[in-house]
C-alpha cells in the first residue's frame, strides 16, 4: 500500500464527510457573539489593551450588581487569608500549600497541557491590607487568564500572560468545597471571564490582590512586575 492508497482508505472513513455545512445565520451569530466578548486578551505581552478596551471592561460591565455584592461580602469573610499569609511566618506547617507544580510544567511535544496548581487560602478571620505593588511583588506566581471552568474543587484558568512564575498552559486552583466557596466568593471566579491572579506559597491571594481584570488591578500588576 502506498501513501496515496492509505490516504484514500482513510478518507473513506472520514467522520466529517457527511457533515452538513452550518446554518449561515448561526455562524453569523456565533461570530458576532465572539466579537462582542471582552477584548482585553488582544494584548501582546507588554501592551495590555488600549484605553478604549480597558474602559469597556472597567467596573460592572455586564455583571449584575449582585455579583459584586457577593464578592464584596466574601472579601470581608475570606479575604483575610491573605493577611495571615502575608503577616505570618510563611513556614508555618499547617498551611495547606500547593506549590506550583514544576514537574507538570512545559514539555514540548507532549499532548497534556502544562499546569500550575494553586491552592486556596484557608478561610480565617483577620483584616485585609491595602493592595500595594510592593506587597504584590512578593507573589511567586502572577498571571492574567480566563476562567475556563469552575467545577467541584477546581477552577481552571487559561493564562494569557505570566507576570511572574513559570509560564504554563493552564492554571488550576484546587481547594476543598469550603475553601473554594470562600475563594470563589472573594475572587468571584466566573467561567469565561478574565482575571488577574497572584499566589504566594502556592495559595491564591485574595484581599484585592487577585480579581477580575480591571485597569486599576492591571496597573498594580504592571507596577509590581515591571518588564
Amino acid at each position: 500500500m502506498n501513501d496515496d492508497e492509505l490516504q484514500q482508505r482513510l478518507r473513506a472513513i472520514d467522520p466529517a464527510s457527511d457533515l452538513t455545512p452550518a446554518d449561515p445565520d448561526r455562524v453569523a451569530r456565533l461570530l458576532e457573539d465572539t466579537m462582542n466578548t471582552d477584548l482585553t486578551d488582544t494584548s501582546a505581552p507588554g501592551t495590555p489593551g488600549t484605553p478604549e478596551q480597558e474602559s469597556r471592561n472597567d467596573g460592572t460591565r455586564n455583571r449584575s450588581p449582585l455579583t459584586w455584592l457577593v464578592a464584596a461580602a466574601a472579601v470581608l469573610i475570606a479575604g483575610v487569608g491573605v493577611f495571615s499569609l502575608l503577616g505570618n511566618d510563611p513556614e508555618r506547617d499547617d498551611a495547606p500549600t500547593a506549590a506550583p507544580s514544576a514537574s507538570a510544567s512545559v514539555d514540548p511535544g507532549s499532548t497534556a497541557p502544562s499546569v500550575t496548581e494553586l491552592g486556596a487560602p484557608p478561610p480565617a478571620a483577620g483584616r485585609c491590607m491595602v493592595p500595594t505593588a510592593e506587597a504584590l511583588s512578593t507573589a511567586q506566581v502572577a498571571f492574567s487568564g480566563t476562567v475556563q471552568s469552575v467545577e467541584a474543587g477546581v477552577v481552571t484558568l487559561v493564562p494569557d500572560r505570566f507576570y511572574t512564575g513559570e509560564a504554563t498552559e493552564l492554571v488550576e486552583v484546587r481547594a476543598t468545597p469550603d475553601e473554594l466557596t470562600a475563594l470563589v466568593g472573594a475572587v468571584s471566579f466566573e467561567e469565561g471571564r478574565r482575571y488577574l491572579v497572584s499566589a504566594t506559597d502556592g495559595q491564591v491571594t485574595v484581599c484585592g490582590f487577585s480579581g477580575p481584570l480591571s485597569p486599576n488591578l492591571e496597573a498594580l500588576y504592571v507596577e509590581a512586575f515591571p518588564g
Partner: protein
Amino acid sequence: MADDDPGAAERRARFEALAPELVEPLRRFLARRTDPVTADDVLGETLLVCWRRLDDVPPDAALPWAYGVARHCLANAQRSARRQGRVAARVATVDPPTQSSPGPGETQHGEERLHEALARLTDTEAELVRLWAWEQLTPSEIAGVMDLTPNAASIRLHRAREKLKEILRKDRPAAGHEESTEGRTP
C-alpha cells in the same frame, strides 16, 4: 466607544474576513475528533481565542494555526470531561460520531480494521495521520498545528504512516481464514 475606535473597527473587519473561512474547516476538524455537543462548545472557544489573539494569527497559515488552537481547546475540554468522569461519552477521538449504514460486508470490515489500526497508534501518531489524511495538511502545516518543527513533523508523519500500514498488513486476514476473522467481530 470602542466601536468608534478605528483600531477596533479595523480589528472587526480583519476578523470578519478571516473567521468565515475558518468555521467550516474547524467544524469538520472537531466533528472528526469529538461528539457534536463538545464540538459546538470547542468551536466557540476556538473562535474566541482567534478573536482575542487576532494579532498572533499568521496571515499565511491561519487555518493550521486555528487547528492548533482547536486542538488545544479540545484537549482542555476533554480534560475537564475526564475530571467529571464522562470519559466514554466525550473522548471519542477515533470512532466516527455517525456510523454509516451497514454496507457490503467487505467494505464494512475494512473500515473497522482501519479504525482499529488507527486506535493502535499513539495519540500523537494518530493525530499526525488524521491531520494528513483528513485535514489534508502538508507536513509543515502539521508542524504548525502540533507545535513541531517541519522536519520533525515530516519524519514523525512518515513513521506514523508506515506503522499504520504495518498494522494493516499484519492484520490482513490470510486467505481461507475470512470466516473465522468475521466471526471475531462483535
